[in-house]
């Protein structure tokens, strides 16, 4: 705190305290020198006639006149200068008052057009520009405070978006965390369990801060909406990509890894959009990077064909998903040397923690990154998701499984995912799965395409069960009646020119399946029941 100067501007003859006194003393001093010089000259020229009474008279009266004159001069000067210096004292008072924050302090009135007026103008200018600066500063401070409080709210919203309630199941140990480098970040993770499938994603929006966080929110919402029963990883990725790429004015891209883990059949399907390959702990305890082929990041090319991979994911297999905030965490030493955390350290850490729980693994890694960085500021968002597949729940394998589809053609790929899971559960081989899938698809596609009038929403329900080596499929819809058993047979032996374009689908269903039975129920459903012996 600076103290204001304490001025006592009273009339004071003390030499140092008054401008007027100092000037008056100087004038008097000059006058005294002039007088003494005059006396000296006088005696020099009138030296011989010093005894003359006239000379004596002149000296005597001259001295008296001079002293009286000098005194009057002093009084007059002091008064005049005191008067002239008064505005200066007022300026001094005003300056103290302005410095105290009172910017509207009145300035002394100056009627002359001399340096005092210039001083007054300068003071006035100082007052207005101080006011201007203070206003600007107040506005800047206010907007900065508002921004900061909005960022804090945004941080809370973003953290609230991330799922923090983790599944409590015997067959799955999953934990995840996200630590943004700034208030808000562009990393995301999410997971949903639908039926017996776990859908999970990790992603990293290019860039940091607010712009990245907006895309993070969009990406996470898209995933939430698209992930659902028997949706394939590549399909989710494709649709997310189309949505992001179609409205991507600022050319932001997102790297992501999506996995779908069938907890019933121990199969993992995954699709990698240019994200870091996750680390895998195999069932026999090997730690390695997952073989994850790279597709384009999301948001670059709207018609890109994302490809997925799959692998068995037996009991005790674990997967760590991470963003480059982990492997590219940096340590900068005092001499400016840089070191990255890297994949080797990560695999080493996993090796040490292969039996640890998901929470323990993530805590360990986060702590290790902190120790490694040793005070070097966190440069990028850090996100980790760890999952371990435990012993499967005992399912009643003869219980029917069901999927309900909308009358949209894209649903056939979801149906394929469902049926693949059914086939895996009952050890039906890949070739047989494809053949059976074709039979179901032909019928279901027929229902989706023709059962409901155009533009009307409808559903088709598929139930599958295997009892005593016989697969029974029941397909049910609420559309217009259609009995395929009454449908004219396609002549598969016809010549090329006579081969009809239609009718192939129903022919395929009949030839692939062992039996086909149609019923139109009293409450208006088409129910097609198909069976196939799968014992051999």
């Amino acid at each position, binding site marked *: 705190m600076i103290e204001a100067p304490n001025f006592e501007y009273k009339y004071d003859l003390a030499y140092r305290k008054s401008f007027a006194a100092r000037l008056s003393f100087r004038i008097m001093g000059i006058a005294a020198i002039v007088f003494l010089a005059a006396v000296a000259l006088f005696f020099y020229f009138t030296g011989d006639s010093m005894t003359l009474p006239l000379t004596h008279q002149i000296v005597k009266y001259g001295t008296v006149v001079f002293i009286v004159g000098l005194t009057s001069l002093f009084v007059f000067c002091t008064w005049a200068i005191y008067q002239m210096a008064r505005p200066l004292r007022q300026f001094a008072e005003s300056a103290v008052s302005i410095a105290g924050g009172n910017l509207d302090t009145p300035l002394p009135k100056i009627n002359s057009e001399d340096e005092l007026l210039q001083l007054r103008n300068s003071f006035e200018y100082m007052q207005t520009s101080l006011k201007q600066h203070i206003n600007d500063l107040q506005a800047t401070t206010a907007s900065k405070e508002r921004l900061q409080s909005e960022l804090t709210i945004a941080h809370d919203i973003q953290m609230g978006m991330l799922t923090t309630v983790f599944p409590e199941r015997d067959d799955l140990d999953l934990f995840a965390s996200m630590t943004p480098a700034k208030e808000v970040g562009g990393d995301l993770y999410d997971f949903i369990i639908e039926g017996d499938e776990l859908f999970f994603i990790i992603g990293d929006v290019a860039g940091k801060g607010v712009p990245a966080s907006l895309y993070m929110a969009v990406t996470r919402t898209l995933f939430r909406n698209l992930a659902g029963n028997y949706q394939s990883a590549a399909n989710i990725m494709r649709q997310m990509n189309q949505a992001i790429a179609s409205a991507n004015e600022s050319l932001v891209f997102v790297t992501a890894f999506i996995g779908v883990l069938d907890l019933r059949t121990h199969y993992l399907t995954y699709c990698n959009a240019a994200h870091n390959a996750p680390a895998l702990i195999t069932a026999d305890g090997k730690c390695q990077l997952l073989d994850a082929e790279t597709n384009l990041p999301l948001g670059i090319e709207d018609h890109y*064909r994302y490809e997925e991979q799959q692998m068995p994911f037996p009991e005790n297999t674990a997967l760590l998903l991470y963003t480059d905030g982990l492997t590219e965490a940096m340590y900068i030493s005092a001499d400016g040397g840089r070191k990255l955390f890297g994949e080797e350290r990560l695999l080493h850490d996993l090796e040490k923690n292969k039996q640890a729980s998901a929470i323990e693994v993530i805590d360990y890694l986060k702590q290790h990154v902190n120790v490694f960085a040793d005070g070097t500021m966190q440069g990028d968002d850090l996100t980790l998701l760890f999952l371990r597949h435990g012993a499967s729940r005992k399912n009643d394998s003869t219980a029917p499984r069901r999927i309900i589809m909308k009358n949209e*053609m*894209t*649903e*056939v*790929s979801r149906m*394929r995912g469902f049926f693949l899971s059914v086939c895996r559960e009952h050890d039906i081989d890949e*070739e047989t799965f*494809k*053949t059976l*899938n*074709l039979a179901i*698809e*032909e019928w279901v*596609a027929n229902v*989706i*395409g023709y059962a409901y009038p155009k533009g009307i929403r409808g559903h088709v329900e598929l139930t599958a069960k295997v009892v005593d080596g016989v697969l029974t499929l029941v397909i049910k819809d609420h559309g217009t009646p259609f009995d395929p058993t009454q449908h004219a047979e*396609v002549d*598969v*032996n*016809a010549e*090329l*020119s006579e*081969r009809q*374009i239609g009718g*192939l*689908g129903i*022919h*395929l269903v009949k*030839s*692939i399946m062992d039996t086909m039975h149609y019923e139109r129920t009293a409450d208006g459903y088409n129910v097609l029941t198909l069976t196939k012996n799968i014992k051999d």
Partner: protein
Amino acid sequence: MNIEIKEQNGSYFGILTGWIDTAEATKFLEDMNPLMANADKSIELDCAQLEYICSLGLRGLLQLKQESAAKGGSLILTHVDGEVKKILRLTGFDRLFNIR
């Protein structure tokens, strides 16, 4: 599903890959257009990477074959195996197509 078309000395080669299911079939028919337009030439379709084909996809092949026959071109399917071979047999297409 993907179809890659190459032209070499006036002959056309198509490589089919992946699943041609009902959802993908419309795109498959569109992608076949360049071949339909050149049905009077010699066309060879490599099915080694083709994993699955639904009836809509088969219709596309049938149309191409009929167009080719009408215009005096030729159509050969190569490396037909597994699931696809089975489907062609079930539909009698194995007798209509020149398969190598």
